[in-house]
């Protein structure tokens, strides 16, 4: 099995078959976790570099564990965000890593399209670990897998994304994956945090969470960035909590077996109440576990040094 591509830049570019391939590949990797020797020799002799222009200990660690469980050599590079503007160009950094024989470069960047630029210029496999407001494909895949594991299907599932959709790469990757797999996706949040034309991706838009939550089989709560208040995107944290926090009362309006997800890290008491985060409906820790298995699957399925062919369909 393979995805027959060298890069994973966004879930926009994967079709239903590709997504199913990923889902089917995760289980054997996950079963490895319960063994005493948690390693497979799949990537022996390969070099995986994590290149993080934006700090994220969780995502970087998850990739690092995934790569190590596949027996790859892992190098972590953290780039100080302030040096980006005047420092060495992204392409030169990538070329240096390639000269050091990196087979996979996992990049996190605050600017959308940074992974695309590397993919276009390098033979190494580029994995997007989150770029600006664009995509976070492995998060999308681990969310997809978690839903698949718990609900046994994706088709026909009603998934609600709540919060700052405008600035969320997770939301975008979720929407691409879920709609392609036949789920019905809705988004809820204030209009100022809703990207214009979002409905053109085939999702339903709600401003009222109480109304939106009734139907949902899965509620994926996004992290709210508190600095958005300074940009006048909502008037106060207090008001946001009033309108959009997932509380026990709100959860009571949902289906009893509704799945509560959060990509983390959580702002407890802001977008989600502690009671809900710790409730039996929440699968937040399992998402973290699945994240490693999904990233192992992705590393396994991509083909580094595959002839570079850059097109918008990449």
């Amino acid at each position, binding site marked *: 099995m393979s995805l027959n591509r060298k890069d994973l830049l966004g879930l926009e570019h994967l079709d239903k078959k590709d997504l199913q391939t990923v889902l089917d590949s995760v289980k054997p990797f996950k079963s490895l976790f319960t063994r005493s020797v948690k390693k497979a020799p799949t990537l022996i002799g390969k070099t995986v570099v994590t290149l993080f222009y934006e700090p994220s200990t969780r995502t970087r660690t998850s990739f690092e564990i995934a790569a190590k469980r596949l027996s790859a050599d892992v190098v972590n590079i953290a780039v100080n965000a302030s040096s980006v503007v005047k420092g060495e*160009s992204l*392409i030169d950094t990538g070329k240096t890593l390639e000269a050091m024989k990196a087979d996979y470069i996992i990049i996190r960047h605050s600017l*959308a*399209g940074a992974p695309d630029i590397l993919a276009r210029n390098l033979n190494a496999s580029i994995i997007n670990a989150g770029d600006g*407001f*664009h995509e976070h494909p492995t998060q999308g895949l681990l969310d997809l897998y978690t839903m698949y594991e718990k609900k046994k299907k994706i088709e026909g599932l009603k998934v609600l994304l709540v919060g700052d959709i405008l600035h969320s790469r997770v939301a975008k990757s979720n929407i691409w994956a879920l709609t392609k797999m036949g789920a019905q996706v809705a988004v809820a949040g204030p209009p100022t945090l809703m990207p214009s034309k*979002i409905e053109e991706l085939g999702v339903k838009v709600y401003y009222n969470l109480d109304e939106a939550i009734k139907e949902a089989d899965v509620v994926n709560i996004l992290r709210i960035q508190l600095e958005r208040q300074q940009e006048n995107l909502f008037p106060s944290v207090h008001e946001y909590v009033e309108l959009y926090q997932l509380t026990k009362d709100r959860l009571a309006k949902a289906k009893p077996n509704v799945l509560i997800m959060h990509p983390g890290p959580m702002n407890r008491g802001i977008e989600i109440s502690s009671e809900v985060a710790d409730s039996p409906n929440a699968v937040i820790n399992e998402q973290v576990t699945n994240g490693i298995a999904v990233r192992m699957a992705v590393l396994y399925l991509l083909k580094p040094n595959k002839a570079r062919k850059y097109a*918008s369909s990449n």
Partner: protein
Amino acid sequence: MRLQIKNIRIVDPSQKKDSVGDIFAENGRIVSKLSSSADKVIDGKNKIAVPGLIDVHSHLREPGQEGKETIKTGTRAAAKGGITSVLCMPNTKPAIDNAPTVEFILLKAQKEGIVNVFPVGCVTKSSAGEELSEIGVLKKAGIVAVSDDGSPVSNSQIMRRALEYTKMFKLPVISHSEDKELSKSGVMNESKNSMILGLRGIPKQAEEVMVARDIMLAELTGGYLHIAHVSTAGSVELVRQAKKKGIKVTAETCPHYFTLTDDVVRVYDANTKMNPPLREIKDVEAVKVGLADGTIDCIATDHAPHTAEEKNKEFDLAPFGIIGFETLLSLVLNELVDKKVLSLSGAIEKMTHNPALIFNLEGRGTLKEGAIADITIIDPKYSYEFTKESILSKSKNSPFIGRKFQGGAAITIVNGKIVYTAIRD
């Protein structure tokens, strides 16, 4: 120098002329016949002669940013594109807000340039938007319009004063229409594409509210307003209504706005990043309608060179702007004339007669007897691919690299002298 162009199709919108004949030029002027035999005879068979093209919006980058372009390289690129005159915007370093800078540019153009260069002066000192520049002094030094291009004149009161004050010089005020708060940190058109790409959008309204404001101020003051680089359907409609009301407003658009949509941004290629940004298909169509019904008077390039190092980066970090001299004529021919948006004469009018009228370029934009002998000879049969290697501009930032064209400049004549002849194999 006595020049004869023999047996050529002459298309001169200023005289409503489209017929086959000869053109004569002597001592840099168009004449009805030569005083003695020609020094140079050009065979005009299968070619078209038009008045030399005038590009009313360009950035030559000199002084101050010679790494991107110079008057020497820029005018050569223009000549290759069939352009005989360029208006250059004042966002140089130093800015064109003082007479010595105007004189420097004119002198450089005379010494090293091969096409006519007409500087545009700043509306406000350093284009900072705070105090009017010495517009009268600049006019005396040789500017043909004022603009703070690159930025709008955000303060409405100052824009009002500018439109009032320039009336005594008959100088148009060129508006770079952009509400900086609405466009803040945007890097492409706000659309489905910006949403998918996760790039910050610039809504069309960022342009349109400024077009509307400036039209209102032109109405208030009776000043001469020229709207630069119109890119949206809403702007076209605002200009159309203003003209109907008799307000003194003219407008230009650029080839990219009638050719490309923001779909081409999809691979995060900064050669598609410009300001205003590429819009959507309904805007492209509206710009074409605006050209066809006379709402849009001129086609300009907004030639904006940037180095490869500056452009080959993350989309957000790359500067706005594309080069345009070398693709102007071919894009007009292929996208407007071949597609029957405009007649050949109608298209040429927007690059010759109309610019000369709006910017008071005496004796240019026409092939009338006595006019300055700026002539562009078009080869409509010439088909070629636009390659990076062929670019004469110092910078290569064009989204049209790799595009195939038919029709382009064969010979460019400035002040009666041949400054460019296409070498074709």
